[in-house]
Structure formats: C-alpha cells, structure tokens
C-alpha cells in the first residue's frame, strides 16, 4: 500500500514554478543587490571609476538596458531604422542610460532604503517599491520588472513619480518629429549624450 502511494506521488508531474516562488526570489535577489550597492556607496573607499564599474557589474543582470532603449525609442521609429542603425542606437543609448544612472548615484547621501516585497501586477509584470528615507520625507522609487528570456529584469524605474522610459520616450519623439533618425544618431555620437 505504502509503495503504491509513493509511486503515485512519484508519477505526479514535477511542479512547475509557482508564481509565489517567483515573487519571493525576485524580492530577495533585488534586496540583496540594493544592499550591496548601498554598501558600496557608503564605503566611499575606492575611487569613483572603480566604484562605478563595480556597481554596473552588480546591476547589469537586473536591468534589461536593451529593452529600456527600445521602449524609449518607440515601436514606430524602431521599425523605421535599419539593422545597423538599431545596433548603434542601442549601443549609444545604453551607454547613456548607464552614465545617467551612475550620475544619480552621486546624489546619494546616506539615506536609508526600505525595500517592499515585490507585487505581481500582471502575468508578466512585477513591481518593487522602494523608499529613500530622507531627512524630512520618504521618496518613492518603483522598479518595474518583466519576464524576459533571461528571467525577471527591470524595464523601467519610476523615480518620485516620473518614469525614466516615458520621459526619454517623449523627448526622443519630440526630437524626431522635426529631425531625422540620422540626426538623432549623430547627436548621440557627438555629444556622448542626447
């Protein structure tokens, strides 16, 4: 009888990943990453270049910079670009995103960061709300995740209510209304920033 039960249990299909496991693992991984970055920022020992390099290494897997670049461009203009232009755009834009991100890190001044557990808002979307606890207020930073081929990755950050992707999107759209794609690429090449 016991053998029967055991074998029935063995036959049962292996569990597919339950959604709840996902939420928990994303929360704990993200919290660990944030803690590591904060620790690095607080240490302040190494020079900026080394520190920045380390931070990018830490967050590279979490952020889907490519997807952020594509979303900032918008489908309409993406379709208008040829393969080389797309490649160049992504390279330049991702470089700019990383620089912008590192620049913001310089604004950090020892605030505490509270990380809320991840919330699954849709089948393929999760959000993690974090708070920057300042001297006289708490400010929100919301990380939006989607399920990519490489697992859950960040595709947008909403800083104090302002979405990075949305802001870049309207800016690029505004630029391309009056100028061409080549102009955009040229601008990104020469200035190193938009």
């Amino acid at each position, binding site marked *: 009888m016991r053998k029967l039960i055991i*074998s029935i249990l063995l036959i049962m299909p292996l569990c597919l990943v339950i959604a709840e496991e996902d939420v928990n693992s994303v929360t704990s991984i993200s919290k660990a990453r944030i803690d590591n970055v904060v620790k690095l920022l607080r240490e302040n020992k190494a020079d900026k270049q080394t520190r920045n390099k380390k931070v990018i290494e830490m967050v590279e897997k979490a952020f889907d910079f490519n997807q952020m670049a594509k979303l900032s461009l918008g489908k309409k203009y993406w379709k208008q670009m040829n393969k080389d232009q797309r490649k160049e755009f992504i390279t330049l834009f991702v470089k700019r995103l990383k620089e912008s991100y590192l620049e913001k890190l310089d*604004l950090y001044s020892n605030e505490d960061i509270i990380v809320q557990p991840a919330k699954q808002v849709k089948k393929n979307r999760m959000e993690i709300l974090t708070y920057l606890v300042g001297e006289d*207020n*708490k400010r929100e930073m919301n990380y939006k995740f989607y399920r990519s081929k490489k697992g859950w990755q960040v595709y947008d950050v909403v800083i104090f209510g302002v979405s990075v992707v*949305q802001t870049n*999107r*309207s*800016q690029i759209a*505004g630029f391309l209304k009056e100028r061409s794609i080549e102009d955009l690429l040229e601008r990104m090449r020469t200035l190193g920033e*938009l």
Partner: protein
Amino acid sequence: MNKDIHQKLDYFKVLRKTFFFLCPVILFVFISFRVSLVLAQTELSEITHDTEDEDFGDDFDDEYSNTDEEIFDPLCSYNRIMTGFNDGFVTYVLLPVAEGYSWVVPERIRRGTSSFFKNLFFPVRFANNVLQIKFKNAGEETIRFTVNSTIGILGFWDPAYKWFDLQAHEEDFGQTLGYYGVGSGFHIVLPFYGPSNLRDCVGLLPDHFLQPVGPDKPIGQLDNDIQELAVESFVILNRNSLRLREYKSFKKDAVDLYPFFREVYEQRRVKQIKE
C-alpha cells in the same frame, strides 16, 4: 473458490508489478521531456540572440503613451523662452547664491528654517486635504502642526515625522482641482516659479489667500510688497540650497530642456493628484 481468489491475487500481482515498472518509465519520460524543453528554449534563445535586437516586445503598448500623440501646447514659444530665462536665473543667480548661502549657513539651520516655513503653510495643506475628502490626512496634518509648533519649537524641528512617522500630505488647490477631474490644461511656464499648467496656475490663487505670510496677515506683519517678496525669495533660496546637486544632475538627462521639464512636471502632478 480458492482458485478464483488465487487467480485474482495473481492478476493483482501482475498489475502491481506492471504498475511499479511503469512508474520509473513515466517519470523518465516526463523528466526528459522537461529537459529537452529547457534545452530547446536555450537553443532557441541562442539562435534568436542575433535577431533579438529585431524583436521589439509587443506587450508594452498599453503602458506608455503613443509617441504619435500631439501635445496641445499653444504657448510653446513663450514657454521655451521662459524656460531658458528660468534656467539662466537658476544656474547663474539662484544656485550660486544658494551655494554661498549653504557655505555660510550650516545644513541643520537651513533644514530648520525650511521646516519652519513648511509648518507655516499648514493651512494650505489642511484646507486642500479636507476639500479632497482626505480627512485622515487632514487629521495627521493637524497633529503634525500641533506637535511641531510646540515640541518642535515653532516648527524648526520635525518631531512629528522623526518620532511618530507622520509625513506631510502635500496638497494644493491645483491638486484639489485635479482630484475633481479638472484637466491640466495646456502647459505654462511661470517666471521664477517654473513649470505649471492652466489648472495649477489658477490653483495658485486660493492657496495664496491661505498662506500666512503677507501684508495683512497676523504672522507676517509685513508692511509692503517688497518685504513679502523678500520673504518668499528667502523661502525659495533656503529650499533650493538643499537641492543644488539634484537640479544640475537631472538637467543632464534632458535632450531639450523645455519638453523635459514639461514632461517631468506633468508626470509628477499626475502622481501627486493620485496620492
């Protein structure tokens, strides 16, 4: 009879044996199926890695605004000029003065001053919270005002937040109008105040009457407009001294300064109205 039972037992034995034989087989088949799925997926993603850049990812459409949408912006040229003016003013006048001010006045005192003025603007926050039927928030604002004005020594200190974790609920009349569904209207850039929109501009008026600093107010006791202007300038200066680096840093993300500030302002307002 016995033969029947024996037969049945034998039959059952065979069945059991077959069953136990099948278990590992089924298990094996299942596991290999899963493994091959995973391998296939990895292979697929390797193949598509080159074309990954071609694939856009279709399900983000409902999350971001359509890039084709035309923003109604009748005051565009004026706004651009005013943005340039404000930016020049901030970069070449306000920030340097604030930097000097920061250098002279320690941060703690500046925070205290900021806290003092923030406390003074309680009537504006209270009224607008009530108008938006946010009674709990209005209540918390009242507690904050009472605690900070007394224990916090007229508001120079903020024990309401530091001890009781009561945050200020920043509401203004523009947000109240937005709460009741008034659209933002077109964008207007005000001199010195910065970005605003039609609704929020209109909303400045009622709040102005509730502000405690002015010529005919009890706290202000100010004799003339120049003094009022001086006080208001001081408040702005003090507040900005605490935000020097932020302005410069965020500005670097702009392609085009005016649309950038407009976009950031409107997104912030939407969030503030929701809260």
